[in-house]
């Protein structure tokens, strides 16, 4: 055991030496004459190689301690923690505006995080439950945002009238995308959805007469508190006048915060309910084995389309919220980067896991803000954290699956047994 560990660490150190000698060990500096002079730094190389050697030993030791000889799988504590984590997170989210340390900045981050939580949960229906890899989810976010902006500006409809319309429009686009990709699986599906996302963005960019192109749409109406607008003047009919409080810009932010919280919880509630319904089980069955699902009389086409439509609807609702919060939208906000971030949230959180996705959105979006002081090092920390999660928990933070129904006690299903879907 000890011998193999030493040999393993030795090999790692040798590989590191091969890499570090040319990369780190030899450095070129401009000399006095202006020509490049070679400056060897072998001390540094020795240090790095030693670090690799001992680091490898530590990793081997840790692995052998984690894996007892009996072949039992190491249990990760998250499921047990999860029972308390979800209510705790919900309580924290509900009370956030009332904490003494919460200012305008914290609320804004909260709104941002919750928007991504909602998008993650929406995409989870498509990717996590139905197993359809969608790389163009941001398209529905854009459709929702532009639907609200255009309806509100052209017809003067209020936010509350536009919200369901935005969801509906995005849902229709979901079906529209769904039809051509029904027969595609895996990589092909991913590429077509990616293209769809780009098409929507490019149309928004070029259809200047409708969308004002790259200049975007500004002056989008803010939401009202069920008909009572938030305004700085204390005029009759405004929120502050009606409730007899001092007008303050924080009121609107708090309202927006609770609005996105409610929308996110709606997404969560519908997902959780549907998962326990025949439709949700059919989605998961499609992810596990499409052919077997068809042999059991499940209409594969309709089931896939409902997943696309529902996921897109929630994307559209989030988009409408985004438009009303920012009051300005342009195609800049709906690049592929957004799709990638949302997908990363879902994958890192664990496909199909509501709690995992919420945590990973909090870490990815909130954490990214938290490290703002680190400047350019932020990306390094971020990338390192992602690699770490993928090494330690390759199926996401919460990769296990809780059965939707049980005769006796529910046993969590190990991530290794769960299929990730091929199409």
């Amino acid at each position, binding site marked *: 055991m000890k011998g193999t560990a030493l040999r393993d660490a030795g090999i790692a150190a040798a590989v590191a030496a091969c890499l570090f000698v040319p990369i780190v060990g030899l450095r070129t500096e401009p000399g006095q004459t202006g020509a490049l002079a070679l400056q060897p730094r072998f001390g540094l190389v020795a240090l790095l190689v030693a670090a690799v050697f001992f680091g490898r030993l530590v990793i081997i030791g840790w692995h052998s301690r984690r894996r007892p000889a009996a072949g039992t799988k190491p249990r990760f504590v998250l499921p047990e923690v999860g029972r308390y984590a979800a209510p705790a997170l919900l309580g924290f989210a509900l009370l956030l505006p009332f904490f003494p340390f919460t200012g305008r900045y914290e609320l804004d981050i909260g709104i941002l995080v919750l928007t991504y939580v909602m998008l993650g949960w929406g995409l989870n229906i498509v990717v996590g439950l139905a197993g359809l890899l969608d790389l163009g989810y941001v398209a529905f976010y854009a459709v929702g945002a532009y639907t609200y902006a255009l309806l509100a500006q052209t017809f003067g409809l209020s936010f509350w009238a536009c919200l369901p319309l935005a969801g509906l429009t995005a849902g229709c686009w979901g079906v529209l995308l769904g039809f051509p990709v029904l027969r595609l699986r895996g990589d092909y599906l991913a590429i077509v959805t990616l293209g769809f996302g780009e098409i929507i963005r490019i149309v928004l960019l070029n259809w200047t007469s409708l969308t004002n192109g790259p200049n975007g749409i500004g002056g989008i109406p803010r939401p009202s508190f069920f008909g009572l607008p938030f305004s700085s003047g204390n005029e009759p009919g405004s929120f502050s006048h009606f409730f007899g409080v001092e007008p303050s810009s924080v009121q609107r932010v708090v309202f927006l915060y609770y609005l996105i919280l409610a929308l996110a919880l709606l997404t969560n509630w*519908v997902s959780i*309910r*549907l998962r326990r*319904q*025949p*439709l949700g*089980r*059919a989605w*998961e*069955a499609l992810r*596990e*084995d499409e*052919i*077997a*699902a*068809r*042999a*059991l*009389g*499940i*209409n*594969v086409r309709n089931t896939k389309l*409902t997943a696309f439509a529902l996921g897109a609807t929630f994307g559209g609702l989030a988009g409408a919220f985004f438009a009303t919060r920012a009051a300005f939208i342009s195609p800049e906000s709906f690049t592929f980067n957004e799709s990638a971030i949302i997908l990363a949230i879902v994958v890192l959180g664990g496909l199909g896991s509501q709690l995992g996705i919420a945590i990973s959105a909090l870490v990815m979006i909130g954490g990214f803000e938290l490290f703002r002081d680190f400047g350019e090092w932020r990306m390094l920390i971020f990338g390192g954290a992602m690699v770490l999660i993928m090494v330690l928990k390759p199926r996401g933070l919460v990769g296990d*699956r809780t*059965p*939707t*129904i*049980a*005769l*006796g*006690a*529910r*046993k969590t*299903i*190990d991530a290794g*047994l*769960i*299929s990730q879907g091929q199409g």
Partner: protein
Amino acid sequence: MDETRLVVDGVTMRFGGLTAVDGVSFTAEPGHITAIIGPNGAGKTTLFNCITGFYRATAGQILLGDTALHRLPGHRIALAGVGRTFQNIRLFGGMTCLENLLVAQHRRLMAASWFGIGAVLGLSRYPAAEREAVERARAWLIATDLLERADDAAGSLPYGAQRRLEIARAMCTGPRLLCLDEPAAGLNPRESATLSELVRAIRDGSAADADPCSVLLIEHDMGVVMGISDKIVVLDHGARIAMGTPAEIRADPHVIAAYLGEDEPA
């Protein structure tokens, strides 16, 4: 005409220049176990895929009672009353046994839940329908001796149990004809014997209070085939070379030459 008689009439299946099944005709009588046997590559599974809607036959027709199966799209065939299992087991591995059996009752539950909308809102007669579905699943878990594994992931079951679960899942769709593709493959003799009992019980309607169900069977295990079949169809190179009772088949010179083999003199 009895509504569960399966009539396969002149079915031909071509893949490009290859004729996998060539004008095969037979009937599977209601309440009978009909076996299809033949050497590897004889076209058994292709014929099966035509009957269960995974392939569309190039020519010929397939009738279950009055329903023309060869005209229906894939998922409608299951709704018409044809349940099937797969040669290489296709369970929903990440879902529990119970969930697997509930997915099989999708259609019934979906209708009771008003296609999902009513059930999300907590309305409708969905809870009662789900209780009924769980009871049916429980009955099949008992019939296949899997009750204590009900809440385990299907993918974690041992091989023989997965085979039984797949049969239970097919039966939960409430079929009139059950198509089994090599159900005894990889089973040990004791498991094969249990399987034979189960298939017989399914035919007679004595398993899990279900209605009697005709069975169509592809199998290489001659012990199982000769033991339980009421009728055997023998295919070779895509064509039917014999049809009859197990005793007739065992004596048929064509079958012996093509498949069963002659007893070599010692």
